């Protein structure tokens, strides 16, 4: 494989030189690669393998680790928060997709039509993405305060009754979705906008000549032309939102009554609050398997459709 990639430099094709050059080139190349190889090995590859190993072990970092089969998984599954954690994560993902997937696309379509204030609107929609997530989340914690938060004050302005937001089981999860959408929709919007701008104008002109109205043009030109990016973003967003952690960690602590506990949050709790790291790993492995399915589809899609 390597010898084939050497450019056939003018005439000098004697075997020893070629071999020596190949060896030297490989040594140099791995010299350049060693930093990255060390970083990846310690902080990506080894943790990936260890994630699997630890799920089937009992370790306390004093005694040698003990293989315990599926015990960690049994511990996790029998936890009363296990069911809610998955249901909430799934529900959060669905709701976050309803808001965080549709809204940015519609926004992008509208922005693409506007001829004024484009720079301002693009800047503004991306502003929350630039804030540290902890800042956005703590800001919304204040807004959600039932007594003096902005949201209830605005509701009060329209003579509507205030809500309990984070404190009620019925609104807590949707409150998290709102924060999440607010702080993340900017990137989706700008990505879609970039995709919309690559649509050739001839397609719209042709559709118009064929008598297609505005909504037909969006349905039959805009959406098919951005189908790929829509699919890619859908998969990426599923993977990202299923790892929701910071919102429940900072806003609700999983409460009230497990209404907002998520899988990653439960995993964190096992490791750092319940002192059962291996159970946390087992839970992480379950999530990894679920997410890998989406990642695999994503890779498949993006590989088949690029180049």
């Amino acid at each position: 494989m390597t010898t084939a990639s050497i450019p056939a430099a003018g005439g000098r094709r004697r075997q020893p030189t070629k071999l020596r050059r190949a060896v030297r080139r490989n040594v140099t190349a791995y010299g350049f690669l060693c930093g990255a190889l060390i970083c990846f090995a310690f902080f990506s590859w080894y943790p990936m393998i260890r994630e699997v190993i630890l799920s089937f072990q009992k370790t306390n970092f004093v005694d040698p680790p003990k293989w315990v089969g599926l015990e960690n998984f049994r511990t996790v599954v029998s936890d009363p928060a296990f069911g809610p954690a998955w249901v909430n994560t799934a529900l959060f993902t669905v709701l976050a997709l309803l808001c965080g997937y549709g809204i940015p696309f519609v926004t992008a379509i509208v922005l693409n039509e506007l001829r004024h204030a484009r720079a301002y609107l693009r800047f503004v929609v991306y502003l929350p993405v630039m804030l540290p997530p902890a800042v956005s989340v703590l800001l919304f914690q204040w807004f959600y305060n039932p007594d003096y938060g902005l949201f209830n004050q605005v509701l009060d302005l329209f003579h509507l009754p205030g809500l309990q937001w984070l404190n009620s089981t019925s609104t807590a999860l949707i409150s998290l979705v709102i924060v999440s959408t607010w702080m993340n929709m900017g990137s989706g919007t700008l990505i879609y906008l970039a995709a919309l701008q690559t649509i050739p104008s001839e397609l719209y002109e042709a559709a118009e000549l064929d008598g297609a109205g505005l909504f037909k043009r969006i349905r039959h030109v805009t959406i098919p032309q951005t189908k790929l990016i829509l699919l890619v973003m859908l998969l990426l967003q599923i993977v990202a939102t299923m790892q929701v952690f910071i919102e429940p960690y900072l806003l609700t602590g999983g409460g009230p009554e497990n209404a907002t506990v998520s899988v990653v949050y439960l995993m964190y709790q096992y490791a750092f609050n319940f002192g059962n790291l291996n159970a946390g790993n087992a839970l992480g492995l379950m999530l990894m398997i679920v997410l890998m399915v989406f990642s695999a589809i994503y890779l498949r899609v993006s590989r088949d459709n690029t180049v």
Partner: protein
Amino acid sequence: MSDTTVMPGRSAGTPATSARQERRGPRRPRKPMNTQFRTAVSPHQLNTTRGRIVYWIVLVIVVVSFTAAFVFPLYWMITGAMKSTEELNAIPPTFLPSHFSLDGYLEAWDLLDLGTLLGNTALYAGGAWLLTLAVDVSAAYALSKLRPALGKVVLALMLSTLMIPPMVIMLPAYLTVKDVPFLHWNLLNTPWAIWLPAAANGFNVFLLKRFFDSIPRELLEAAEIDGASPGRILWSVVIPISRPILGVVSILTVVNVWRDFVWPLLVLPDSDKMSVSIGIASLSSQMPQNVLVASLVIASIPTIVVFFLFQRHIMAGLTAGSLKG
């Protein structure tokens, strides 16, 4: 409206036409809508009177709602920090703080020791930036231009890390930082706990390699014939022409480290080593609301400034990531 293609300045120049237009009010020739980029709405419809009315209504709605949704919360945050606790609790709320004072900010700076927190975060972001560039640029260069044996396997392994959701391997990665295999170093509470994992970024390697692949081979061969070593070629030929992608990678790295929450939460538990997000979050429940809000403002200033300065790079990085995964 066929006369919209006429330049408005020119048609207004003759008194006769402008007088006619005064009378006819709505039929003044206006600057036609910019139809350079054809979009879903037809330019013809957009230039009719009805089209224009609808367009301006939509524009106003969008601008107002975007301002309300994305700017107003920030305004509320900045002014909220200037209000006293009583004023924050007041009903109805005050739109402007009753008096302008920066005391809330000063108090937040002292109480939360924001100077230390911001300094820590700058140290983590800066170091991660340098290390990431050094490590990922040389790796991408080796994979793209030196093409060693098994290079494709190495690349595939690096890209495979993109498939692994970061949250899922955070526990074993934490254990690695706590006790690095073979070396038995404890990196907790040291900047290395942030720097080294930041450098293991498959996406950066991918972006850089893709850019390096596009550099014509002849350019490097010319340098090679002149006797330049691979290191010299990287430094004097490849890096100077790769500035755009280096900018994108730099911004992505710095912004990611600055915004990150979970990883620093795990590996930097000491309060004098915390990054600014973690520091504020850990003290948030003990602070008066106005002090907390002031600290949020201060914590967001650096990222907002970076955004102002490097908006183009940031948006380029965004689409570089999306259009190809």
